[in-house]
């Protein structure tokens, strides 16, 4: 568990743009490197964290919970939030000084393709818990298209995924 907490603390500092870009890395460590759970289980925990209200960083507490119960849940969430919070604390007061600095715009533009690539990777990894199969590809593709082309509330899209899963796999 301490190993998990230390790793989350480290990830906290590279989680540019929130938790989505580090999701594929979390899955890699938790499922592939450490074997704490199966890929399918990870995708299920991800489902729970996305369907529940609140910040999506709470997936960290579910991973902690699975590994070490309630204490693990608290520790994992704290580990993922604390280093970033300390940084936010420190930088919050400096922001006015470098808000208009040219390097900030350069950095911000540079982050876009990296974040986009990592979020795509997260989507791919989480959508293929049992390798590539056409049913899951269909569900993920339909939900991506629904988000991209419509203004549907994401909760409806998740509900659609539940129905599609029940129908396709029955």
């Amino acid at each position, binding site marked *: 568990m301490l190993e998990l907490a230390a790793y989350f603390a480290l990830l906290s500092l590279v989680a540019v743009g929130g938790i989505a870009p580090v999701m594929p890395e979390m899955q890699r460590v938790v499922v592939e490197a450490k074997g704490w759970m199966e890929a399918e289980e990870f995708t299920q925990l991800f489902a729970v964290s996305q369907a529940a209200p609140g910040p999506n960083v709470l997936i960290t507490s579910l991973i902690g919970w699975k590994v070490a119960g309630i204490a693990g849940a608290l520790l994992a969430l704290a580990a993922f*939030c604390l280093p970033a919070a300390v940084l936010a604390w420190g930088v919050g007061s400096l922001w006015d000084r470098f808000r208009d600095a040219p390097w900030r715009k350069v950095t911000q533009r540079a982050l876009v393709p990296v974040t986009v690539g990592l979020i795509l990777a997260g989507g*791919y990894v989480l*959508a293929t818990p049992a390798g590539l199969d056409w049913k899951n590809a269909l*569900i993920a*593709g339909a*939900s991506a298209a629904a988000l991209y082309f419509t203004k549907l509330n994401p909760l409806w899209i998740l509900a659609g995924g539940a129905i599609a899963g029940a129908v396709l796999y029955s």
Partner: protein
Amino acid sequence: METEAAQQQAPRPPAGLGELFWGFFTIGARAFGGVLPWAHRVMVEERRWLAPAEFAEILALCQFLPGPNVGNMSIVLGRRWCGLPGALSAFLGLMALPFCWVLALAMLYAEHASNPVVRTVVTSVGVAAAGLFIGTALKLGRPLARKPAGVALVLACFAAVGLARVSLLAVLPVAAVLALLASRRGWL
């Protein structure tokens, strides 16, 4: 465009720790399908702690920083208004209820996980949520579509982390350096 009413009522920071905690608590409590819209609604529209421009600015900072965006926002604002106790109460207020919710839901699921139908449905919800990630990435990446360097970086990051499963800690430094170089040359 600000309405006259909004201009007349200048934003006013929360009066104390209690109000700060409670405000962030209501953000967390109502945050179905994303926290950010609710953060805006509560802090800018309902409680008028912040002017819209201030909100956008703090958000830009928190998106620039690593870590959970709205979590960072609670720290930065809590600190600005009430120091360390403020940062703690805002953060705890934001997380308290969603934390209980998500654990309760996970426990409920764990109880029924032996049922194959339940398992299939929950996995499908996860797959659909993964699809939302893909849709989000496409939206974020749309401005890059006509920039070859941008597309190349997106694909390289995707392939390295998603397909080859290389550690992010190895990919990120390389990707960051390449992206910064491309960005400085105006390719992004």
